[in-house]
């Protein structure tokens, strides 16, 4: 086989591989390579984080704006501390915003719901490293059942 044909076939092979990679990136992972996401970090302290995992989504009204970067126990306060990475495009949250741990579906994964606060002139926007003060813990099914049993006991 002459070298011209070999070169053509090799070129076609490399092209096919790169096209396959492009398909994986654009069609399968649905990533826009032109948009390199800048992120900023917020922290929040919860009483109970339930089953929240690292990389769980942070949603505003169902739209994902970021992900949980770190879940750890604060050593001085002994409460769970959650670090959230939020896309820099969404930097208009005021410091009256609140976060709560929600569950998608009855037994689905847990995520953080971010509720934006009111926008007033004197309010400050949350920036990198800020702490979200207003937090609501996860609803733990066992505690809920416990409360229900306890309250129905008292009712008798």
């Amino acid at each position, binding site marked *: 086989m002459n*070298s011209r044909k*070999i*070169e053509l076939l*090799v070129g076609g*092979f490399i092209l096919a*591989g790169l096209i*396959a990679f492009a398909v*994986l990136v654009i*069609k399968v992972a*649905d990533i826009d390579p032109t948009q390199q996401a800048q992120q900023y970090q917020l922290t929040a302290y919860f009483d109970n984080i339930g089953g929240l995992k690292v990389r769980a989504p942070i949603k505003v009204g169902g739209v994902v704006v970021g992900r949980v970067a770190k879940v750890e126990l604060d050593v001085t306060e002994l409460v769970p501390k959650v670090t959230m990475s939020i896309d820099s495009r969404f930097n208009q949250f005021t410091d009256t915003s609140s976060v709560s741990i929600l569950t998608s579906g009855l037994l689905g994964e847990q995520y953080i719901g971010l509720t934006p606060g009111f926008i007033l002139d004197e309010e400050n926007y949350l920036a990198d490293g800020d702490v979200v003060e207003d937090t609501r813990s996860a609803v733990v099914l066992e505690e809920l059942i416990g409360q229900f049993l306890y309250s129905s006991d008292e009712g008798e």
Partner: protein
Amino acid sequence: MDAIAKLGRYGIDWLARLGQAGLMLFGAIFTITSVKQLWPLVIKQLYHIGVLSLLIITVSGLFIGMVLGLQGYTILVDFGTEDSLGPMVALSLLRELGPVVTALLFAGRAGSAVAAEIGLMKTTEQLASMEMMAVDPLKRVVAPRFWAGMISMPLLTFIFCAVGIWGGHLVGVVWKGIDAGAFWSILNASVEWQQDIVNCVIKSVVFALVVMWIALFKGYSAFPTAEGVSKATTETVVHSSLAVLALDFLLTAWMFGS
């Protein structure tokens, strides 16, 4: 006492062979002086190693994707969650099956051919003749094959994954009638750039290195007889398959363990 001495001898032999293999690879990669001279040889090897492996990679990818789609559908439909077929097929292909099965097929198709070819070159004293003519066989024979393997394997892995996902789509959406929109949107939501695609690339590069290294060393150090060459070929497939499977576990534990 004899047994301990034997164990020691095995250990020393093994380390010596590892050292030889390392020296061979080092000599092949780091003595390259000009890419211009190497590139035409790499193109020729890309044809033998990459293009000729395309058929088996594409066909296996298609059928593995279709089988995943079919089995996944029959299980998931019991729970009414057959829409999750997309992420199941895509994630199992990208995270595990794509890199691993490609590496196993590559070891069988290309690795064994490389080992046999170099082994035969050694048996017919072509390597020795090259040295006589002041041509370094590491640069002339080993390096082009190594780079061709390092380039082809990731490309073959991407083709395998893309064809496999298309096969899963074929069974799930076209044959079993899952909604195409749900299939792709749930798939897009679960596949992530860093965790799935980048790790797939890392795995395929590591496997390419291991498979090519084993194949080249087995061929290069083959005993120069017909039996020696056949042994080198067999050992290439066996050792590189075992190395790929063991490394896959280590890489998976490192990437997804925490």
